[in-house]
């Protein structure tokens, strides 16, 4: 992976810096403290349903969308295969570990099954990436969409390994340290921990030399190649990293649902992940989590909401589609982009003159 010679960026005074330098506790902005505290204290604030079905699910979907955001935002490669990678990890855990389908599941202990599942799923994502990086831009979307649907059809047709249409059920997390990890509160903290790890590692990698080189490849692949960077290797390495995050999320997902079936990795869910990432915003790692919360809230409550408005609840997909359409039509960089533009308009100086803007944002118009 270390294609470059450098080990870290260099600060102005010449001292070598790691990607985390300048990060003391005091430099973390206040909103991060507030969000962190709220997330940690969440079990005291909401009931088990919210904890498990809303926040647990949103954090997992957020992680999968985060892996897409890493590829799309930093690598310029929008991959629709991330949901399939997650489902692949889930399947592998069910096959090597325990499930209710005893004639297929091997029943190996969790400390063997989980690493194997992660490795196989990451390998699957890497292979897909190696194929997809042979093309660029829009072709990547089409090819990953086609591979994702191939995975869906394959799992639906294969009964020897993937148990066909019904998939696996009864996949439970192990009883570790005497805690039942499927209870809402332990499971919430488990997903919160891994989501935080994934978020921070994406943040770290995006500032590390590899991440910076990847962003260089995104902006101008030819120039990076001329500078001596191996463009293909960087892109494939990005797929490895993103696939690993998606694989971890997939294992959490199968514990959340207790089952995995071809429907988990269908074309609809694959596109939903793209919707989540785009609605949240592809520019920052926090975007996918915001998108996931909105998606899960819509998914859980749109039905009740639409029924109470006198519409039939079946039109849920229409509502999601319209929200998505409105956001991508008017704000290509998602909710975060909207928020940033609004903030810039409210309180900032003009970037050209340095003068304070009018309250009504006259210079913007």
């Amino acid at each position, binding site marked *: 992976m270390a294609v470059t010679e450098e080990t870290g960026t260099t600060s102005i005074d010449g001292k070598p810096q790691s990607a985390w330098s300048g990060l003391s506790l005091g430099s973390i902005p206040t909103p991060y403290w507030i969000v962190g505290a709220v997330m940690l204290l969440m079990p005291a604030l909401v009931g088990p349903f919210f904890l498990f079905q809303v926040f647990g699910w949103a954090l997992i979907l957020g992680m999968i969308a985060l892996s897409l955001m890493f590829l799309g935002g930093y690598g310029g490669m929008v991959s629709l295969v991330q949901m399939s990678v997650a489902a692949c990890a889930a399947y592998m855990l069910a096959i090597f570990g325990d499930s209710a389908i005893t004639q297929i599941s091997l029943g190996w202990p969790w400390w063997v099954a989980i690493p194997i599942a992660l490795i196989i799923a990451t390998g699957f994502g890497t292979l897909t990436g190696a194929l997809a990086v042979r093309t660029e831009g829009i072709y990547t979307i089409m090819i990953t969409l086609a591979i994702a649907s191939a995975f869906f059809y394959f799992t639906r*047709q294969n009964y020897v390994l993937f148990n066909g249409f019904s998939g696996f059920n009864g996949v439970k997390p192990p009883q570790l340290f005497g805690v039942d990890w499927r209870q809402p509160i332990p499971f919430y903290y488990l997903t919160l921990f891994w989501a935080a790890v994934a978020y921070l590692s994406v943040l770290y990698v995006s500032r590390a030399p590899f991440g910076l080189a990847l962003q260089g490849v995104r902006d101008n692949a030819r120039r990076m190649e001329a500078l001596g960077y191996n463009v293909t290797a960087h892109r494939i390495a990005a797929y490895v990293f993103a696939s690993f995050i998606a694989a971890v999320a997939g294992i959490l997902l199968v514990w959340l649902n207790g089952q995995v079936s071809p429907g988990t990795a269908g074309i609809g869910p694959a596109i939903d992940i793209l919707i989540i990432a785009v609605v949240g915003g592809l520019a920052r790692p926090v975007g996918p989590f915001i998108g996931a919360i909105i998606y899960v809230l819509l998914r859980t409550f749109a039905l009740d909401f639409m029924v109470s408005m006198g519409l039939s609840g079946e039109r849920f997909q*229409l509502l999601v589609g319209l929200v998505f359409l409105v956001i991508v039509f008017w704000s290509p960089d998602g909710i975060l982009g909207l928020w940033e533009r609004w903030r810039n308009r409210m309180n900032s100086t003009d970037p050209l003159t340095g003068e304070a803007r009018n309250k009504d944002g006259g210079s913007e118009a």
Partner: protein
Amino acid sequence: MKDFMARNPFWSLIIVLAICFLIWAIFAPWPPGFVDTFGRKKIFLNALFNGVTLGALYFLVASGFTLIFGLMKNVNLAHGSLYLLGGYIGYDVANTTGWWLLSFVVVFVVVGAMGVLLQVLVFQRMEGEDLRQTLVTIGISIVVADLMLWYWGGDFYQILTPDWLSGPIQLPIVTAVKSSGEAVFLKYPFVRIVILVASIVIGLAMWLSLNKTRVGMLIRAGVDDRDMLSATGVRIQRVFVLVFAFGAGLAGVAGVVGGTFQSLAPGEDTRFLLASLVVVIVGGMGSIPGAALGALLIGLAEQFGSVYMPTYAVVLTFLIMVVVLAFRPQGLLGERR
């Protein structure tokens, strides 16, 4: 053609041999040993003919897609929705008026108009922004799919074949020889033959008008360098709208065809979007002959797959795509840019 043979003598030989074998397999009665390994000849012939007609349908859908992409670099992931919408509208028209042929005209006009709307309202606003076009068209396809589900419901629809087209006809191809020495000829639905011939005619007409007419010349020039074309004074946006309307109308017409010899239901839009994606990836983006070759390959693969390895027939098409991508990323007949 000559270039290809001069450069790849080995592959040319294999292709020629394969074609000879295919011709023999179609026209000659099969020897018994052959029947034991591959099953009856009738099954093989039916798979072949179904594959070719399915390929014709795929070609109708994918040629519009590839034309739009090749000229405007517009990625229209709502293409499958245009197909299904065309099918539904065609069903309603054919059902109320009773004229099957009229439905083609109405669908071509209506869906073509939808294409004009798409081009003017969506694509002109975000020219050159690939990702945004993709996302917006995905959004449109979700919304349109749900609206269609709302209006037409989740039932299966099939457009009735008119009387003068229904029923099988006998083809001059021997499937088996009875013990009495009497030859049995293949019977095949007439409507499918008509659809196949019509697609070939449409394909040829497209190829001719692209290569022999003034509009075709403009389109080809636009594919090569559209900035230069607009600099020479051509009102290129009009050409764009025209091509988009034609491509969308073709997708709608394909919907009527698909509704006649298959069926219409929610989910068919995704299926045909995926099929046209695979077809143009295999054949080469923006190339009409490529779309024809890709459609034929995918149609045949799907039908032969469903006969000889039923479990993984769907996966086979994607496998072909992966192999093509691995060895020829620009597609079989695509040009490297």
